[in-house]
């Protein structure tokens, strides 16, 4: 089955992105396809390469980049939301790309299920 994921909250502040990540891992392990992960609202902050968590904490940004690399995931950051919050190509972590909101609607059309993680 094809899933699309919408993440509306940033890293560390809220558990939403952790839950979304573990959901994606479980879905991939079951042989499902993650059609796209779309980052919106403060969720765009999940893509900042400037994030530096303490050594003993999970690295949420790198974790997404790694999952994207392993599974060829399409991690899309909303351009309007990103520019509002200081996310640009120059500080975008590997595996993410910045694009328009149409990518969210398109993912909703193309996927069998869209699941939202937010606050």
């Amino acid at each position, binding site marked *: 089955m094809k899933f699309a994921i919408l993440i509306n909250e940033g890293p560390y502040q809220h558990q939403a992105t952790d839950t979304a990540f573990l959901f994606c891992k479980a879905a991939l392990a079951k042989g499902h396809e993650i059609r796209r992960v779309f980052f*919106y*609202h403060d969720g765009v902050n999940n893509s900042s390469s400037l994030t530096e968590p303490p050594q003993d904490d999970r690295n949420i940004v790198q974790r997404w980049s790694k999952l994207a690399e392993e599974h060829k995931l399409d991690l899309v950051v909303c351009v*309007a939301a990103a520019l509002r919050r200081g996310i640009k190509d120059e500080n975008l972590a590997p595996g993410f790309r910045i694009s328009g909101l149409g990518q*969210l*609607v398109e993912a909703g*059309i193309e996927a069998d299920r869209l699941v939202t993680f937010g606050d």
Partner: protein
Amino acid sequence: MSEGTVKKFMFVNRKAPYGTIYALESLEVVLISAAFDQDVSLVFMDDGVFQLKKGQQTKGIENKNFSPTYRALDGYDIEKLYVEQESLEARGLTEDDLLVDVTVLPKAEMGKLMETMDVVLSF
């Protein structure tokens, strides 16, 4: 998926405007969705009904007043706006307080409408 797929999209708005950005950014998705020729419905319930309150004046808080956009939605062929009756009543509002024409539905009818959707996005 092939071109021409039409899904029933529902955007559920449960948050008041200005206090957080959710209402404004939700509206941005709604406007984009119009370009995809989908069957789009908007729901306003709980504090989301405040998004449609007439007479918003945002000069004093130096925020953009985005409420006129709701009136422009029919220009984008987005005409299905639903408001939950119980949410209006709990906030001392009636249909006359809203800046756009809506269909008011009691809670059970709202729940049944949600069941008919393909994609539900909640902001």
